[in-house]
């Protein structure tokens, strides 16, 4: 019988390096020594467990979860997809959290001073749990691009931040969703921290006309892959080694 064991090691070529000088802030915020690679034990193969009691009924609907006088301004979109692992198995009942700027590219954050206005009806965050098939969806407005201080004329492409837990602390991941066809993608120093074009493509949500709601909402599909888990064919090496 197969026994679940460790999670597959991360492929560093799939991720941005800690030190990526084109993204200037990473220069002083990146370790210089190599990380120590650990064989996983109980702490690494476990992680926090969440339930529907942790969430409110509108947490996944960014169009409705901060409304004061009406719906927020912007292009109404649905973002949906599946959370899978590297074995292509669904990751069920896992927490997915998102945050984003409003349609003008402004964040509701005390530290964001961009001149585009706050939308009184838009908070900019949401959260949901995947179902038994690893499926999730949010409704929101498409975020705007915005300028940021790196080189003097850098702009972030429209993006939604995603936070994922999986089933273990070693699967913890924060990433960003970009939108298919955005001309700012190849110009973005943060995206360009990733060296592998296929990996960048994996962060690009695809227009999904079939999931769009006529006369209401455009849909984008965004599947997410978390680290997969090894099955031990002979013995439980987690205990045995």
């Amino acid at each position, binding site marked *: 019988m197969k026994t679940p064991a460790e999670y597959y090691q991360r492929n560093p070529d799939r991720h941005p*390096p800690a030190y990526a000088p084109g993204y200037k802030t990473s220069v*002083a915020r990146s370790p210089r020594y190599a990380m120590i690679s650990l064989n996983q034990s*109980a702490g690494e193969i476990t992680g926090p467990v969440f339930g529907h009691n942790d969430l409110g009924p509108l947490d996944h609907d960014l169009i409705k979860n901060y409304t004061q006088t009406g719906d927020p301004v912007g292009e109404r979109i649905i973002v949906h997809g599946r959370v899978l692992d590297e074995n292509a198995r669904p990751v069920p009942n896992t927490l997915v959290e998102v945050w984003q700027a409003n349609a003008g590219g402004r964040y509701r954050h*005390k530290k964001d001073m961009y001149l585009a206005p706050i939308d009184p009806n838009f908070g900019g965050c949401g959260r949901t749990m995947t179902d038994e098939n690893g499926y999730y969806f949010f409704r929101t407005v498409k975020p705007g691009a915005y300028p940021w201080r790196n080189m003097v004329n850098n702009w972030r492409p429209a993006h939604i931040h995603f936070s994922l837990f999986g089933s273990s602390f070693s699967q913890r991941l924060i990433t960003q969703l970009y939108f298919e066809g955005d001309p700012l993608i190849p110009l973005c120093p943060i995206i360009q921290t*990733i060296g592998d074009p296929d990996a960048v493509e994996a962060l690009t949500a695809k227009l999904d006309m079939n999931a769009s709601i006529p006369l209401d909402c455009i849909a984008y599909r965004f599947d997410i892959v978390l680290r997969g888990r090894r099955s031990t064919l002979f013995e439980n090496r987690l205990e*045995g080694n």
Partner: protein
Amino acid sequence: MTRLEYLQETPSQTAGPYVHIGLAPGAAGFEIYDQELGRDIAGPNAKGERIRVEGCVYDGTGSPVKDVLLETWQANSEGHYAHPEGGGPVEEGFRGWGRVITDFATGEWGFDTIKPGPTKGRNGRMQAPHIMLWLVARGINIGLNTRMYFDDEAEANAADPVLNLIEWENRRATLIALKSDRDGTTVYRFEIRIQGEHETVFFDI
């Protein structure tokens, strides 16, 4: 060439400067959720010693990283994690996971929890009590994993298989929090240096 049919992990991207909106909106300046997650690590029923942990994260220039967000993951006082594979039962309300935000003016952070017990490591070797920490911030391209140990566990620390894995003995001290007493509260101080002199040991888990 035929390829095996594994998927590849979605790449990481920085959490950015506004991570609080998504993970701790109260800190960003607005209330939206009935309950923010990760505020109560141990819960009211956890056995063991109540402790406070405080610290600061520094960048390569020695400046505090004022916008960092940390997550914590730990066992209960009996060494069990709140998870189906966590090694045993935990107290009602014990989650063992927390989200920690900084004071934006100073970069100082702190959290309240219980001191974890020793946990079973590989090959049955016991691991000294420790709290796992995960750091994200603007400029951090992929979350950084480290561990915090306790300076009043010298014997257990000396036998800990992970600390002993660190070849450079002088670097092990970067993972040890320093105990003090403040008006009857046990406080452990833990500085994290991302880069530069006394750079903290980070783990690829």
